[in-house]
Each structure stands twice: as C-alpha cells, then as structure tokens.
C-alpha cells in the first residue's frame, strides 16, 4: 500500500515498514524499497541516515550493471573514482531526495558523505572484499615464503659466520696459546745483563761436562758438574777465555790418555782464576778427580784454591812423568794464562814447570778466534770421539754457553789471540762455521732466545753422521731452568700483562724486551733510593714511610693525590686491606696500627 504522506504519522509508517518489509541486513545486498525511507520524520538524523543507508545499501548492491562496470574497472585494477562517483551519484540523487527530508543540514552532509562513501563499498563490496583478501592471501603467502627464505638464508649465514668466527676464535686462541708458549719459553732463558760474570761462570760450567765427556768419566762428570754448579759466581773474564781456548786446544791435541787429566782441570778452572791447571793435567787418579770437586766446592776463594793448587801442582809434578804433550799443554795453558789476566799464583806455578815458552805458537794455533768456534770445536770433537749420553746435553749447554758468552764476551774474545787458526781446526771449522752463524745469529738476536740455540745445536747433531746420541736427561734443571734460584727475575708474563693493560695498544715483541730491561734498571734504582732513605732515617729496615717518601719524590704522590688513593686505584682488595687501616666496630683498627 502506498504510503500516505499526509495522513500517516511516522509511527504508522515505521510500523508498516516493519511489518511489510523483509528484514534487510545493511551488509547483505538486497533489494529494498527505499520508498519507505523517503518519509522524513522526526527521526533523529543519525537514525535516518542509518536507515537511509540501510536502504541505500540494498539499493546500490543489486545494481548489476553498475556493479559489473565497477567490477570491470576493478578487474582492470584501475579504479576510476570518477566513474564510480558518477555511478554513485546516480544513486545519490535518489537518496538525496530522501535526505532533503532530513531536518538538519548536517545530517544531509553526513548522508551525502556517507552516501558517497558507502556506495563504493557496496558497489565494490565484493571486489574490495575479495581483492584485499586475495592480496592479503597472496601477500601473506609470498611474505611468509620470503620470510622463511630469509630465515633460512640468515640461518645459513649465521652458521657460516658462526663457524667462521668459531674457527677464527679457535685459531686466535690457538695463536695466542702458541704465543703464550713462545713467550713463556723466554722465561726460562733469560740471562741478566748485569750479571756477566754469572754468564761466564755458567758458560764455564758446560765446558766441564764437555771435557768430562771426552774423559769418559761419567761419574766425575756428574760429580764435578754438580760441584761446578755449586761453585757460584766466581768468574774471571780472561781466565774464562783462556780456559775455553785451552780446552779447545786440549781437545784437539790431547789423546785419550790425557783426557783424564783434563777432566779434573775443568772444575778447578771454574774456581781458580789462573790457577795451576797443569796440576789438573797430572791428576789422573780418580781420587784426585774426587778431590778436585772438593776443591772446587771449597775453593771459592782464590787464595784458598791457590794454596791447594800449588800443593797439588808440586805433587803432580813429582808424580807423573811429564810428556812432551803434557808440557806442551802446560805451556799452552801457561801462555794462555799469561795472555789472559792471571793471578800471581798462576804465574808462580808456571815457573814451576820449566815448560818452554816456545809453545805459545802452538798454543795460539789452537786458539780459535771466537769462543763459539771453540765450543763448536768441542762439540765437533765430542761428536767424533765421545759417545756418552751426556753428549747431547753438552751440545745444548754449548749452545747456551755460546749464546751467553758470545753476547757478553765478544770483546774479550778479540783481546785474545784472534788471528790463530789451527790447521787441525780448519777441516772442522767448516762444519763449525755452519753452526757458528746460527749460533752467533741466535746470540745476537737475543740472549733471551737462547732457548733457540739448543735447537740449532740439536739440528747440528744429525749433521754429524758419527754417533747418534741421545743424551740421557741428566739434571735438566741445571741447564735451562732454575734461573730464579740464581738470579731472581720478575716474571715476564706479569710485565707483559700489566704493560699491555696500561698501554691499551698492541705491542711489538722487541718493545717488550725493552720494557723488561727498563724494569730491571728501575729496580736497581729503586733499591738504591730506598737504601738511601732508610739510612737517612737511621734504620736498617725499609718501612712504609720510606716508600711514601720515594713516591713523593717521584711525583706520584702529591698533595692532591694521597697515597691511599693510589693504593685503592691500583692494588687489589686484599692488599688494600693490608695497607690501609680500616676502623671496625669495637674500637678496632685493621690492620692494627
């Protein structure tokens, strides 16, 4: 029935609508009769709008033509708004007629806007709904696929990176370990520059085993070797040189007969300075050999040893018949002794033996120019002659010996007869010279790296096809380690760590060496200063106050920077507690003042 605009009240109109009109969902496209909505009543504008909207939706949706057109446009994915709006506007006038009935212009505007907005939705509802969905679906799928791929790639990369980094880290750690190992090796072979005498002495010591080897006196060797160790820091540059030369000569010339005599000499030479080595020559008895070590131990003082030696010298002179060779040896020894710095006793003993001094030439002829050569001669000779187990050790010690001696005593070498080249030595010298560069190079390279010298020495061993010797590991400690017992040194690892931490930059290895030398010098300065301060205070013990005075003078402790602050900054807690008194409850102060 037709709405009666005049007579029907809104109430009645609505009622009619509700009763007659099918329920229309604003979303579902349905044919609606928007004629009923034309009635504008006292409805609130929003309701009106909504109803009109509702009415509109069904109106617009079933417009297939328009929809199709719209759809077409949509399919082309080129949505022309103008077209759409035109189509929408077609609908809109119809709706606008309704809207004119609206009371408020706002409602109208809203309606208009809604109308303009909604029709596109309704018209394109299907397409819009679907397209986004399709897009989303596609996008989602593609996105997810892409994400997975990315993840896989990233994972693969991560694995690669991880493996690489792990390997790198491993390599780095290995390298650092190797470096640590390398650096640690230095610890064992660090001579002290200020202790050249020790060097010489220790250099002398290896000679002892060498000579012992030739003597085949393993017993005496061990005994004397250890005695020599005990000897300590008695050394003499010249005599050292002389001894080395002498030893080389002896080795060159001496027969096995005289070898025994030589062995006792060596321990003595350590102790005595320019003593009567000839006496040693004559000592062939084992008793003497044992007595010699005793003398070695006891004869730390020159005079003491001198007395003994002179006694023994006379004894030996009367004892054994003096062969020419022995005389020659003595002469050589004497000449060498004279050549080097000698004691009075030595000279006196020389007089005893009326050995002709015409042997100096021979003596010198056997004297090689460089100590290392001597040692090499030793080693070469030992290679040939000796087959004892301690051979290898002698080689190692020779390496060390050379290392130290070369560094410390090049000058003395030159002082000695340098221009004498023994013919006998020449054939060997060639082989020796092969090693000398290595040795000298190693020595010049660094005393700290003397550990490397045993390696060239050991490598030299196989070169000599004579006896393959495996030195039994006799007191290994004596050769390389046990440095701290004789010469206390600060751990190089500590210095390196502290310095690297303070400097915060990579440091060259040679720079570390310099730092180490510097710290040694510093300790010397420090001890001097502390002694001065303590004596000034009339005390014999260095106290904390002395240390503070020192630091003040160094400029470390100022009025602005008290000592406690420095302590707290640089020392770990345990030491802080010991140094800084702290008050605790119960009227106690720790540490007690």
């Amino acid at each position: 029935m037709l709405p009666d605009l005049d007579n029907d009240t809104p109430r009645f109109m609505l009622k009619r609508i509700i009763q007659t009109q099918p329920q229309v969902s604003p979303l579902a496209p349905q044919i609606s009769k928007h004629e009923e909505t034309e009635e504008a009543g006292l409805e609130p504008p929003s309701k009106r709008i909504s109803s009109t909207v509702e009415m509109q939706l069904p109106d617009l949706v079933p417009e297939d033509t328009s929809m199709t057109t719209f759809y077409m446009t949509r399919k082309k994915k080129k949505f022309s708004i103008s077209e759409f709006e035109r189509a929408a506007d077609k609908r809109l006038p119809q709706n606008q007629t309704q809207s004119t009935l609206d009371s408020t212009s706002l409602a109208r505007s809203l309606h208009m806007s809604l109308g303009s907005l909604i029709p596109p939705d309704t018209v394109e509802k299907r397409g819009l709904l679907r397209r986004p969905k399709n897009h989303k679906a596609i996008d989602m799928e593609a996105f997810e696929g892409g994400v997975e791929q990315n993840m896989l790639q990233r994972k693969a990369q991560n694995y690669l990176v991880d493996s690489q980094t792990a390997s790198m880290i491993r390599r780095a750690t290995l390298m650092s370990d190797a470096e640590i190992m390398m650096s640690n090796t230095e610890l064992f072979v660090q001579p002290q520059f200020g202790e050249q005498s020790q060097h010489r002495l220790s250099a002398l010591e290896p000679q002892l085993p060498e000579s012992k080897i030739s003597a085949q006196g393993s017993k005496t060797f061990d005994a004397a070797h250890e005695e020599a160790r005990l000897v300590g820091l008695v050394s003499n540059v010249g005599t050292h040189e002389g001894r080395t030369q002498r030893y080389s000569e002896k080795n060159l010339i001496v027969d096995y007969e005289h070898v025994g005599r030589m062995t006792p000499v060596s321990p003595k030479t350590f102790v005595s300075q320019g003593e009567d080595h000839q006496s040693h020559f004559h000592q062939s008895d084992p008793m003497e050999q044992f007595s010699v070590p005793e003398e070695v131990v006891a004869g730390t003082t020159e005079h003491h040893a001198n007395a003994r030696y002179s006694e023994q010298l006379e004894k030996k002179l009367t004892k054994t018949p003096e062969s020419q060779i022995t005389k020659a040896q003595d002469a050589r020894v004497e000449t060498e002794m004279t050549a080097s710095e000698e004691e009075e006793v030595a000279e006196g003993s020389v007089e005893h033996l009326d050995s002709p001094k015409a042997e100096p030439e021979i003596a010198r002829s056997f004297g090689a120019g460089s100590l290392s050569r001597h040692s090499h001669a030793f080693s070469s000779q030992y290679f040939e002659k000796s087959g004892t187990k301690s051979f290898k050790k002698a080689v190692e010690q020779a390496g060390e010996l050379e290392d130290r001696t070369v560094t410390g005593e090049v000058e003395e070498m030159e002082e000695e007869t340098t221009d004498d080249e023994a013919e006998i030595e020449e054939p060997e010298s060639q082989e020796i010279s092969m090693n000398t560069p290595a040795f000298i190079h190693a020595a010049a390279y660094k005393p700290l790296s003397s550990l490397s010298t045993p390696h060239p020495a050991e490598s030299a061993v196989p070169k000599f096809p004579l006896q393959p010797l495996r030195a039994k590991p006799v007191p290994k400690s004596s050769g390389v380690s046990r440095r701290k017992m004789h010469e206390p040194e600060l751990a190089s690892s500590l210095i390196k760590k502290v310095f690297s931490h303070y400097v915060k930059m990579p440091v060259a290895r040679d720079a570390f060496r310099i730092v180490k030398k510097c710290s040694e010098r510093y300790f010397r300065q420090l001890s001097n200063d502390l002694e001065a301060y303590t004596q000034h205070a009339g005390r014999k013990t260095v106290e904390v106050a002395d240390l503070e005075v020192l630091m003040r003078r160094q400029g470390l402790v100022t009025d602005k920077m008290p000592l406690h602050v420095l302590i707290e900054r640089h020392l770990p807690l345990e030491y802080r507690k010991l140094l800084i008194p702290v008050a605790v409850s119960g009227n106690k102060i720790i540490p007690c003042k």
Partner: protein
Amino acid sequence: MMKRTAPRSTLRKIIKKHKPQLRLAANADLLVHLNFLLFLHRLAEEARTNAFESKSKIIKPEHAIAAAKVVLKKSRG
C-alpha cells in the same frame, strides 16, 4: 684476569740481590709492587704518546726506548 697477585717473594729476592744488607718491612713489598705498577703505567702512557705521534698503530721498540729514557729519569727520586 687483569689483576694478578703481586710476586711478593720475587720482589723481596730482587731487592735482596741488589742490596743484601737491606731489610723490608712486612707490607713494604706491596708498596714496592705498587710503585712498579705506577712506573709501568707511566712508561705505557709515554710509549703510547710516542706511538701516536708517529702515527703508528703498535708500540715499536723505538717508542719504548724513548719512553724509557724519560720515565727512568723521572722516577729517580
């Protein structure tokens, strides 16, 4: 670890080696260690400055030597 224990006995031995007649108080060697650390600290700073000046990324021996000269002079007391 950054901090290591101070080599107390080694320090005592070193001083004893240089000055056998000198004695050390109970905790004096800790202060000696502190002194040594500060000395290394100054040496490190000086060496680092030298390296920077020569635009080098690592500490070379020449930097260290120059630094040592300066710092040893300063810490004479």
